């Protein structure tokens, strides 16, 4: 039978320890918070490294290769997406153009992709002014710059610090391509549903402020719901060693009967700053 010979001495020891421990816990709160931040940072870093190692181990094909576009198109055929034949045909074309743009981004191609054959409005996005502040356009005090001039200044503001070399995708993994349709283009719909292939931290590509107008949708309540297609794949960029996931979202513009670039998210590991 376990017995305590002198309960008072035990109580004294326990009491003394509690008197030391509890005030120390209160006094060291700031140190605990700093330690917790350090552990969380370390955990995130380790987790990112682990994910990056898995992504780096995948097979990548040079993005310039014809196979990349073919693989995407094969994926569309293989999936039972709720798309009409016209949707699919246009998607193949738009996807090819979007991939070409991501491999070899130029302002002209970007502007064409965002505007050609589409009804659009332009209103400078909230995310843009910080780039524009540095641009010569506003310094010159131009009274009413055209959308093209505004987009060009955003393009230059992003690309000038990088010695004029746009960030681009250099290779793509053809083994893990995700694709699905959705009624929204929320980050969750794009990266958190069926097309999800994971990410460490997502970075959204900048849309300077293009908006696609559907007069029917804005005037009648009974119009067809919006249609988006989300595509995901792993890629390497020209500015990072690590590979990472890329998520594209395209919007079906009913009056134009074509797909428009909607949103793009890339993993921070790819270090990509791009316009989409």
């Amino acid at each position, binding site marked *: 039978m*376990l*017995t*305590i*010979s*002198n309960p008072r*001495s*035990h109580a004294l*020891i*326990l009491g003394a*320890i*509690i008197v030391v*421990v*509890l005030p*120390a*816990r209160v006094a*060291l709160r700031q*140190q*605990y918070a700093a*330690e*917790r931040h*350090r*552990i969380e940072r370390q*955990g995130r870093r380790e*987790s990112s490294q682990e994910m990056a190692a898995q992504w780096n181990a995948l097979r990548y094909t040079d993005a310039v290769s014809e196979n990349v576009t073919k693989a995407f198109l094969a994926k569309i055929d293989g999936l039972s997406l709720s798309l009409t034949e016209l949707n699919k045909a246009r998607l193949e074309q738009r996807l090819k153009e979007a991939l070409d743009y991501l491999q070899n981004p130029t302002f002209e191609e970007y502007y064409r992709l965002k505007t050609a054959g589409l009804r659009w409005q332009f209103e400078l996005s909230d995310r843009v002014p910080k780039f524009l502040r540095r641009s010569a356009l506003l310094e010159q005090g131009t009274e009413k710059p055209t959308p093209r001039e505004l987009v060009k200044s955003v393009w230059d503001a992003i690309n000038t610090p990088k010695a004029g070399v746009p960030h681009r995708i250099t290779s793509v993994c053809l083994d893990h391509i995700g694709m699905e349709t959705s009624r929204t283009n929320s980050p969750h719909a794009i990266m958190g549903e069926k097309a999800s292939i994971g990410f460490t931290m997502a970075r959204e590509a900048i849309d300077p402020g293009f908006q696609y107008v559907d007069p029917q949708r804005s005037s009648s309540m009974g119009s067809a719901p919006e249609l988006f297609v989300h595509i995901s794949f792993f890629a390497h960029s020209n500015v990072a060693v690590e590979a990472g996931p890329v998520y594209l979202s395209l919007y079906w513009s009913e009056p134009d009967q074509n797909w428009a670039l909607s949103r793009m998210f890339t993993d921070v590991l790819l270090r990509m700053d791009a316009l989409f």
Partner: protein
Amino acid sequence: MGRVFLKHIPKLIGFIFIFAGCSKLLMPGQATTALESLDIPYGLANAIVIAVTILELYLGVLLILRIDLRYALVVSTCLMLAFTVYIWYLSTLAHAPSCGCLGLTGIFKSRKQEAWFGLLRNCLILWALKLTYDHHFPRKPAESLGELAHHSTTNT
């Protein structure tokens, strides 16, 4: 030599407990995070770490000062068994978190290594506790079950 060693084991384990308690008092983050990774809410994880810190310091003092040694050894063995089961469970996880036991988190290449080292360390401490207990509180021959059974059969 062996006897001297056995005599001082309680003190040695006492210092280990004091070190572990102080380490958790100064840097409780790893231990709290390890509990949280098992879906234990932050408040409860914090309370458990405080309780364990107090218990370790208390047992450390008892073992070093040899106050109620039998009681201290038994409670220490129970605590070490609980720690061992806990570390074993952590080691089975795909992404094993650091247990934060002795603040030795920086010296291992991976958390799995740390968990396995923790298991080995705890098994050694348990073995040392058993040896110490047997040394300080040897069983009287009549107390063994075999003896008692023998007596009962011969009496009938």
